[in-house]
């Protein structure tokens, strides 16, 4: 999990907030982002249940994994702000 990118982007965002060029992220904004990601995860998990082809299952699992990773990052972001 590369932290460099996200930390760098967070740093840039905080500089923009400090200079008044960006709006402040509030916890409910992150909550909303997590809700959107979770909604997709639920949809993908439901679809995966009906997939039998191994290569297709793998693609779905990778996609679900990416979404889960973003949810965890969002939670990490919530702590940082």
């Amino acid at each position: 999990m590369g932290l460099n990118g996200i930390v760098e982007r967070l740093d840039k965002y905080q500089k923009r907030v400090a200079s008044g060029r960006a709006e402040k992220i509030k916890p409910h904004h992150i909550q909303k982002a997590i809700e959107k990601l979770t909604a997709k995860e639920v949809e993908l998990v439901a679809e995966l249940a009906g997939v039998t082809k191994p290569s297709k299952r793998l693609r779905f699992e990778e996609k679900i994994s990416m979404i889960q990773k973003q949810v965890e990052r969002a939670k990490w972001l919530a702590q940082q702000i």
Partner: protein
Amino acid sequence: MRRIFKKTLLPVVLAILILGFWLSPDFQQIAAGVAIFLFGMLMLEDGFNQFSGGFLEQLLKRVTGSTFKSLSFGVLSTTIMQSSSLVSIIAISFLSAGLISLAAGVGIIFGANIGTTTGAWLVAGFGLKVKISAYAMPMLALGIVLVFQRSKYLKGIGYVLAGLGFLFLGIHHMKEGFETFKDQFDLTRYAMTGFWGLVVYMLVGAAATVVMQSSHATMVLIITALASGQISYENALALAIGANIGTTITAIIGSMTANYQGKRLALAHLVFNLVTAGAALLLISPIRDAVDWISAGVGIGAEDYALKLAVFHTIFNVLGVALMLPMMKRLIAFLERTIPDAVPDVSQPLYIGAAVGGFPATIELALRKEVAHLHENAIELIVHALNLHRHELFAAKDIEAYVAASRETFDIDVDLAYEQRIKVLYSKILEFMTTSLTGDMSESTVKTLHHLRRSAEEMVRAVKEVKHLRANTSHFTGAEHGEITRLYNRIRTELARMVVEANKMANADPDIRSSLWLEQERTRVKQIKAELGDYVEGLMIAKELTGPEATSFLNDASYGYGAMKGIIDATRFLYSEYQGPMAEIERILAADDDDEHSADAAPS
């Protein structure tokens, strides 16, 4: 045949006009009157378009939200303006500008027919004649001054006022032109009794109203003729029925510049007035008895035919509304069947244009819809260029199997389709964007417009990449060529998967949709590129692929990767948050390059 008719129509119309001008100076007046009238209609529509998306639309939606409300609106506005024709053409303009629904328009027309009866009462009862056309010249002068103002609303009011001024000026010239024909209406000449007498007088009433461009003027003529004993009371009733039919001509002329919705409303007006006239003719005796009964009840003298005519006018219009109201749904279905929706030309913009006006919010919304429209055209072309059908692809459970089974090369000229359906639309979007950016825009709106431009740009790039790919793809997947067929099918499959994801995003609930959903696809393009590079190398080592075959495929594959990236980026740019904290979150959470192969832990 249709094409020949279309080609010859304009020269024929021009020839008829020139011949008419040469033969009759009156014809010149009438034709000029019609032209000025139509110009007024265009201005009126332009004026109402300025209010689209604004308070007028909200207000009209509220006051015409139900049949009763739209009916009342028609009654009230016609009573105030004393012209059902004017209310009808304003309703046509509202409808053409998309400010009201067809049902609301029909309600207003019904109401206008009741409202117009107040005119007969004013004329007959008080000798009062409200002549709104007297305000035509001031309206024109004030309107033109306002048209040159910067404010969108003032400009809109200016167009409406000038439009009304031109409408009245047009009607004035039409009347002037018809002046010589007016003397033909010596009502005693058509003296006839019985049913045919009714029919003939009804037609005379309709013709007189067309000529005089005013049902009020016809009513005055009828009352005068009745008072001087030139015609019988029964003839007068038939003339009043005819006037109601003749008055629809103004709306019919007005609908010539309107869109299909405006034309539907003009037809509704004609249908309503014809049905009402038919019912009144059939029920003439009972209606006459009702007139006598009501007149006696309210103290109108048995010989006071002018007021009795006003009673008749009211009864038969209320009767018409009472007859037509229960059939309103059927009437609307008939109108929609008779005048079908205009099939949109997908190569032309559907949402952007002058009508959007200068509001950042409407510009943004229109552009977003137009870029989505461009996406739709592009996706269709990409899928067809890959020799696939959209509906089959979107329904396929196994995309890989569906692609492998789709071998037939589609008979389409991709270059031509690109020129017609993508390039034209794309350049219109860029033109609109450039024009919009010259106005006063906040930094966030400018940013949003740039995002949308990027979205359009990326999708157009994807189409261009697929264009390059098509020839070899069709050649190698049309028949079995071993490994090379499987390689090209892999590119088609991956592209098809990206298209499916883009389609899922387009159809997702906007409240929960997030561009982060596409992060896996974004990183997957790089993954596919690496996998295929390794695979091709292996095939070359195993001598299953020649050097030229490998080079050719890798060239095409790079077009494929470009197209995949274009589709995903275009979709992300269209559906991502553009501004505010949610946009910041999406930016921060976006996948890193090293996320391609890892799916492990969260940052700690």
